[in-house]
């Protein structure tokens, strides 16, 4: 597929120690029953996992639990077609839905000792590592926007939001970063 959006892959913000925009990525939303999710994990070389609100990953790919029958599959931007092919072969004949949302949302990395504090200015979840440990991921809200939040490390989060919400989310986060 021709990437018509590449012309408008504008940088939403200049990177700061707190917040930086991640490069474009392959994003596929897969929905199906357990055997579909297991077959997809096998095909992509990811561990099978049904644990709610947890991400599993390999060197190049990740599967994020979005719901009991829903996973967000992440990879590098140039691997989208390859992932699509692997999944279509592995899931042939099984009822499922596979949607490419790669251009629909943008990813950011929020990191540093004050990352959780800055996120909590707009997100009501308890981000203490005891209740939101590394590898936990979930859809939630940030101020008025829906986001996907994934704790990728002790003080590092990956935040994904709809492209149109990105300026809103990042401007509030940048403000929080200055204040916190």
């Amino acid at each position: 597929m021709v990437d018509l959006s590449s012309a408008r892959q504008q940088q939403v913000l200049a990177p700061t120690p707190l917040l930086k925009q991640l490069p474009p990525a392959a994003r596929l939303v897969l929905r199906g029953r357990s055997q579909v999710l297991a077959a997809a994990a096998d095909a992509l070389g990811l561990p099978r996992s049904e644990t709610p609100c947890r991400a599993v990953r390999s060197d190049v790919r990740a599967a994020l639990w979005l719901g009991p029958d829903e996973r967000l599959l992440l990879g590098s931007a140039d691997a989208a077609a390859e992932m699509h092919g692997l999944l279509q072969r592995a899931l042939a004949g099984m009822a499922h839905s596979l949607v490419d949302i790669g251009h629909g949302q943008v990813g950011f990395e929020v990191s540093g000792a004050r990352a959780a504090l800055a996120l909590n200015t707009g997100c009501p979840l308890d981000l203490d590592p005891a209740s939101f440990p590394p590898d936990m991921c979930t859809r939630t809200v940030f101020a008025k926007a829906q986001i996907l939040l994934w704790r990728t490390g002790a003080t590092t989060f990956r935040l994904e939001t709809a492209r149109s919400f990105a300026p809103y989310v990042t401007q509030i986060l940048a403000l929080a970063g200055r204040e916190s």
Partner: protein
Amino acid sequence: MLLIECPYCGVRPELEFVYGGQAHVARPHDPAACSDEQWAEFLYWRENAKGVHAERWRHTHGCGRFFNALRDTTRDQFLATYRVGERPPAASSREREPQP
């Protein structure tokens, strides 16, 4: 902030949820055989409970799933939440005291 326990994700802030109306409203098996009154009752007639009410909620900004809840409408207190297809929890668990 009111906390609601999603049966899949655990305890989450109310902001992430939307209300989905009364639970356990069964669609008639054969709508064509219903009288106008029966069909209108299915479509429009709902309880207006003062007390424990079984209702649907959706974890919109979370796992996206619908689930059911027992809520005391006089105190806006959630007594239990359970997955679609499960029966409402027994009366004993409905008698919980208000949380401090």
